[in-house]
């Protein structure tokens, strides 16, 4: 008993807060970018749509380390963009918390984008037509009519995005590294402590991750099932 209390007192909770902050910021970024991209892609012609959709979905299909490789290539201080950002604005992405956010956002983005797109595709187009004939501006009808009508799909996309961003490992470890208290996320901490044989600490984090994941899945089910009371048990 005492051993557990002792362990809890000295326990380094920083990975939890780093992961949480990263997840929230990445989700906010993906929420707007994903909805924006979904809206734009739906307006493209069929060929351009297939191509752009492919590029936007790529991070979901690729191994995260491959995405991390490209991100490193882009933001390394020895590369034009990375050097420019650091030289001009003093912004450093590699080995910083910003790197965590960018890695998580890139990996989680397709979940938001694809869910938003699917939700938009199912909207009754007459709702949009009606809003237009009534004189509602396209921007207003998008936020007041389309987004609420696509609500459940967007909500579950948002939760999935958060879940993915929270647990991101591969790209984050390459771009941001595992600096304790700065970029050390839960996933990276688990890998690190297991590598050093500290299974007890690893188990604590695994349980935390499991609880979060379970909570998220239940949240999605409640969001998706809340609207329709239709009986479809069989």
């Amino acid at each position, binding site marked *: 008993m005492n051993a557990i209390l002792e362990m809890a007192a000295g326990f380094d909770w920083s990975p939890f807060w780093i992961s949480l902050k990263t997840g929230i910021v990445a989700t906010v970024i993906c929420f707007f970018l994903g909805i924006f991209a979904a809206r734009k892609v739906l307006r493209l012609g069929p060929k351009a749509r297939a191509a752009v959709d492919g590029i936007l979905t790529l991070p979901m299909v690729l191994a995260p380390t491959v995405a991390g490789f490209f991100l490193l290539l882009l933001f390394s201080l020895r590369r034009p963009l990375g050097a420019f950002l650091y030289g001009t604005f003093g912004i450093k992405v590699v080995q910083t918390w910003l790197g965590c956010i960018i890695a998580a956002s890139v990996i989680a983005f397709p979940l938001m984008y694809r869910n938003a797109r699917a939700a938009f595709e199912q909207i009754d187009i*007459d709702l949009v*037509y009606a809003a237009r*004939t*009534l004189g509602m501006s396209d921007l207003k009808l998008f936020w007041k009519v389309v987004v609420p009508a696509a609500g459940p799909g967007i909500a579950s996309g948002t939760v999935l995005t958060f879940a993915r961003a929270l647990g991101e490992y591969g790209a984050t470890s390459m771009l941001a590294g595992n600096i304790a208290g700065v970029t050390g996320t839960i996933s990276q901490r688990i890998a690190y402590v297991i590598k050093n044989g500290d299974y007890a600490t690893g188990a604590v984090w695994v349980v935390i991750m499991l609880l979060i994941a379970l909570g998220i899945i239940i949240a999605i089910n409640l969001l998706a099932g809340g609207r329709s009371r239709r009986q479809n048990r069989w």
Partner: protein
Amino acid sequence: MSIYVDIRKNLGDFTLDVKFEAEQETLALLGDSGCGKSMTLKCIAGVMRPDEGEIRINGRTVFDSAKKIDLKPQQRRVGYLFQNYALFPNMTVAENIMAGLERKGRMPKDERRRQAMQYVERLQLAGLEDRYPNELSGGQQQRTALARILASEPDILLLDEPFSALDATLRWEMEQVVRATIAEFPGTAMLVTHDRDEVYRLSDTVAVYKDGHIDVLDEKWHLFAHPQTATAARLSGCKNLSPAHREGDRLIADDWDISFAFPESGDNADPAWVGLRAHRFRLCGQDDPYAFEFEVVNRIEDTFSFILQIRKKGSQTERLIRWEIEKALHVDVPDTGYVSLPVEEILLLRE
């Protein structure tokens, strides 16, 4: 108070190519589904764009491909009633109607609500203003949609199959609401439907659509009394139609294998089709010029009448002629005999 439309749009299977104008009246677009009626309304509203042509509402050009004018739907002042009403599901009745005040620009929230409540009263929605669309009956949803449209003070009303989502009882009730709305409305109203009875009760003028073009454009009573084409006859409720041709002083109805004296009363001297009104047959003697000898194939009891399916006696044709007769009278019809119709009920039609 008028509408002028002259547009063309390629729709893949066929080309929408229509030209018409209407004054302050109700113009019905009557036709089978998928013949371009709704597309015409959508082009007028500006949510679909014609390939070329011109549209004027109350003399105001809203679309002109030659002059590169294409007003946004927001600027066209069109009141569009959608088949499924297209109420915003996340807004209450009052908020939906307030969305109709969008074009009036900024105003304080309570002023907006006060104005919306006038339409709530007018369409007898009082007490329902804070409900969401999924808590309303079909009729209440339609009232809300009408209130929202009227709040937007449109120049023209476009009603796209307004009753098709309602059951029979509600249909009649809502037709009265729509009729009252149209009667008070100071501009043109256009009604898309495939129900001839709705057309007859609600409209003044009818445009019969066929494969994307207007087959006949005529005043309602004239169209129903004297349809000129096979499509117009069918859509106005003529149930017996057959390809036909003239041979000397005889008219031959090819599908039914019958012939009778060519009715010289009509203005069509070389018809491609003939139509016989199902409820105007009468028993007659052999010497009636429009008589043919029949045999009854089936006697089908309908709600308020009997439907006799007849054909020329001895013929093996499967194209039966439909004769609708009062229930009390059908027992008087023998299994074979001679039948004819008043000459004005024999419709001589072009293709």
